[in-house]
């Protein structure tokens, strides 16, 4: 084993490789593949398990998306039975719930996206202003913490805190729980979401800010910049590319409200404001076994998200030259 390793390694010099490949241009594709595998089989060993997992658990379900255009047939499973075209999509668009679900999804995700996007930027700019590194790391340690708490626990905390009459917050809101109030659902959702993730999400901006050349601050100070001007003219332009990239990525989840938290926060009283695409898919798919119909709804969701991602990517490429593709 050791001996073979050494032999391969000795052949594996980059110059050697390139020379070989150049010289062998005229040789057959099989020969060149053989050389490639001889040099790199160990890297293939490293990468093949991950490829296998991605193919099985990501691409097979993608292939199974055809179920949205077919009737479900228990004997064929994932690939589906008789083709029915866009019938299930039409069924969704004509579903009496359609308008409510779509508005709920867009409302909840837009609030969460916008607030969850702005808050970490502001927090990062503030933390960056702290001079003492001890204080800085203290603030960071505290604000990261909630990120690691599970959704079940967060929702339980909300429940306890909003207990009418006796809860930490519930005692200020009268005799009925805010968690049963459809109007309160979206604010409670996004505020708790920001509370949980703002610290963690600002790390990426702090990383960008830490790359600012100190000389730039000095120069700006000499030009007469005060604290606010430094933020305005040095810090903000520094994080702008990062902001752009993250904005694109976020655009890809316009309809991507997390399933777990909404599902856990849902109850019979707030359902008119809290039924979103993902929870509806779960309800009619997993609970009611209408596989084709709920696959169609899921696919609709993915396609809309992908469209927004591409749109944002295209605009950003035109405007600022930063893009993910």
């Amino acid at each position, binding site marked *: 084993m050791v001996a073979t390793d050494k032999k391969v*390694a*000795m052949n594996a010099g*980059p110059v050697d490789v390139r020379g070989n490949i150049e010289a062998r241009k005229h040789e057959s594709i099989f020969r060149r593949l053989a050389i490639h595998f001889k040099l790199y089989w*160990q*890297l293939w*060993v*490293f*990468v093949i*398990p991950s490829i296998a997992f*991605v193919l099985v*658990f990501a*691409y*097979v379900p*993608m292939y*199974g*998306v055809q*179920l949205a255009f077919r009737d479900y047939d228990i004997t064929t*499973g*994932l690939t589906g039975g008789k083709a029915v075209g866009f019938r299930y999509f039409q069924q969704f668009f004509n579903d009496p719930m359609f308008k409510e679900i779509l508005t709920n999804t867009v409302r909840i995700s837009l609030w969460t996206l916008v607030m969850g996007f702005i808050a970490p930027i502001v927090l990062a700019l*503030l933390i960056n*202003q702290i001079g003492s590194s001890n204080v800085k790391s203290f*603030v960071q340690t*505290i*604000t990261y*913490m909630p990120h*690691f*708490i599970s*959704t*079940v*626990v967060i929702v*339980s*905390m909300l429940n*306890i*805190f909003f*207990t*009418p*009459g*006796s809860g930490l917050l519930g005692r200020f809101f009268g005799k009925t*729980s805010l*968690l049963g109030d459809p109007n309160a659902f979206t604010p409670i959702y996004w505020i708790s979401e920001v*509370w949980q993730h703002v610290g963690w999400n600002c790390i990426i901006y*702090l*990383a960008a800010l*830490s790359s600012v050349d100190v000389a730039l601050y000095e120069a700006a100070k*000499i*030009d*007469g*910049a*005060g*604290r606010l001007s430094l933020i305005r003219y040095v810090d903000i332009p520094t994080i702008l590319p990062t902001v752009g990239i993250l904005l694109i990525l976020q655009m*890809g989840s316009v309809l991507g409200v997390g399933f777990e938290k909404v599902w856990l926060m849902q109850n*019979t009283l*707030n359902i008119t404001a809290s039924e979103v695409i993902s929870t509806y*898919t*779960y309800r009619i*798919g*997993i609970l009611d076994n209408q596989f084709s119909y709920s696959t169609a709804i*899921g696919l609709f969701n*993915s396609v809309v998200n992908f469209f927004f*991602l591409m749109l944002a990517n295209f605009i950003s490429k035109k405007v600022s030259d930063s893009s993910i593709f």
Partner: protein
Amino acid sequence: MSPARPAAAAIGDAPWNKHVQQTKTLGDWAVDVIIFLVLALIVVLVLYPLWFVVIASFSSPTAVSTGQVTLLPKGVSLEGYRKVLEDQRIWLGYRNTIVYTILGTAVNLIVTIPSAFALSRKEFKPRRVIMFLFTFTMFFSGGMIPSYLLMKSLNLLNSMWVFILPGAFSVYNMIIARSFFESSIPEELHDAARVDGESYFGFFFRIVIPLSGAIIAVIGLYYFVGHWNDYFTGLIYIRNQNQQPLQNVLQMILLANQANQSGGAATSMATMTSQNFADQIKFGIIIVSTLPLLVIYPFIQKYFNKGVMIGAIKG
């Protein structure tokens, strides 16, 4: 609010004079004070709910519900914890989650770290195609139902492997690790290793791994927390109560009577007391279930900035 102006006037006289800049203007002081107050407020807002859960879990239920518990435990009572530790469901959930988390994280790291290393090697030409194959899955997925049917046909429903295999590889974490390898392992090391006759295996295990403690810790923590907090898998794929992980057990205990609770305020004295007592058990459960994360948090925390920033800048 224009702190720049007085400074500008002063500097206008002597643009090269460093002493001028070192004197803070009134505006700068005001900005400092405001920033300090805002940050202090943020820290309190984040910390207090967590602190409240901790002190409430140690306090007498009546003191909590009447609002007497504010900064420190009041009427210390461990009754809630006693009840929690007596509950067999919690122990079972705990045991299941520990098994799923340890096994799952081990598989995660074994799959992710070598893959990230291979894809960080620039001379490995197929990496572009493979990366495209991987990143595409971050933006498009088959969705809940095709995944469910796949698990069904693979006989993974009601199996512990459904907690380990489907999520064995996260593209996101692989990209972070790959960025680390690309930016932090100098190419000279690879050249030197090759001169010494090391294969890729030898280079990876003898040189790269010992240098990558920070990134392995961070990626390991991400996976660990993901498994520990996983509620979705148990909800969708597991029907057998004995196999449910901790989070799903918690959901049953903590949120089971949620709908009744929101229905109307408890009125009679008896329901009030049992409600308060139930709340104390809930505080206890929250602490007990989050304890492992609280314990490892301080040890891992120092790696966060390092690990995340590597991923952030290059990713």
